[in-house]
């Protein structure tokens, strides 16, 4: 099999994780998928720059991260990030309440992440969501390991603080008076 064909198939198998990474970076499944799609298209045009034997996932994370940074720089990119649950599957009735509470909580976590500065969100996405080591994360994001550590601790404490501040921030039923 030609190398490029092999890489392409490997990319297909990476898609679920790339989508997760895109979701975490952008805060939205749709925006994340747009990012994955653009990154895949770009990756196919520069397959020759991929070094065989290195991690394809890290290479893709890096492409996505760079595209996302570019996108964030463009003025019309500012879009409200939704913290709604993407999940629409039917629930087991007996576990409904617990499940709902869990989802409320995870929606709050997504909102807290969405409110972080972009560079902190990127570190969370590669380390907490994608499980890269600090060294790998530093390479993907092109920052020193010490910066990975400080951004990561700040980001996680900020998420904790946002959760602790609880219900105050902009969470209400729209049109609440008839």
């Amino acid at each position, binding site marked *: 099999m030609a190398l490029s064909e092999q890489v392409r198939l490997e990319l297909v198998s990476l898609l679920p994780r790339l989508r997760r990474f895109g979701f975490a970076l952008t805060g939205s499944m749709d925006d994340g998928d747009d990012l994955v799609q653009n990154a895949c298209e770009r990756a196919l045009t520069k397959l020759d720059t991929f070094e065989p034997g290195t991690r394809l996932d890290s290479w893709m994370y890096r492409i996505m991260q760079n595209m996302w940074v570019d996108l964030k720089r463009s003025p019309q990119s500012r879009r409200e990030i939704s913290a709604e649950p993407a999940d629409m599957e*039917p629930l087991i009735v007996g576990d409904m309440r617990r499940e709902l509470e869990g989802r*409320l909580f995870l929606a709050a976590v997504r909102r807290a992440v969405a409110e972080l500065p972009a560079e902190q969100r990127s570190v969370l996405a590669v380390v*907490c969501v994608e499980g890269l080591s*600090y060294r790998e994360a530093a390479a993907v994001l092109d920052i020193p390991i010490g910066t990975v550590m400080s951004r990561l601790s700040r980001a*996680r*404490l900020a998420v*904790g*603080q946002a959760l602790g501040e609880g219900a105050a921030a902009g*969470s*209400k039923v729209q049109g609440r008076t008839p």
Partner: protein
Amino acid sequence: MNRHAKPWVESMLVAYVDHQLDPAQTAAVDDIVREDAEARTIVSVLRGTGEAVREAFEQPLHEAVPARLLAALGATGAGRGAGNIVPMRRPARSVPMRQLLTALAASIAILFVGVGVGYVAFAPGGSMVPAGTESSKFEATLYRALEREAAGATLRYDDAVTGTTGAVTVAGRIASSLGNDCREFQHEWTGAQGKGSETGLACRTATGEWSMLTVPRGPAS
């Protein structure tokens, strides 16, 4: 927070939590965490938020990859590529959600809110209604039902603007780990795009608003 002469910094603790320290460093932080209550609490928050963030974005792993992404990689043929990507089964959570929530809530309460202060764990965004029911009538009806109606009461609405009709039934108040004043509700609707139903949980926030999550049940058909 008044901090002086601490034997630790947060970035060291996060590396400890994420198993990124070498054995000697890990042993040193083990000692610190054993001695220092604040370090212990921060470790707990860092660990809990790390797990929570991972959980919060795992959805794409459990569903089929959209065709357009497969197409971008030239893997659209039936049985080829597309057929090979199946959603993973949702695995048993490594840490049960409730346990995660409780542990994290306790640590956050200590660190940011102060011991003994009640903790409300959520601030989800806005009103969440299923596609096709962006109806202000529904929202007003739901709000009225949550505020004023007894358990089991059903309120109906008819929204001429969106061409949607529906009914909201509220359950009694429940005390949940997310707040003391939560109510479950059922919403059934009929609109241009068909019928649908959803179950929701609404909890009153510290500011007196309702914060809610709805989960559609059954397809709109």
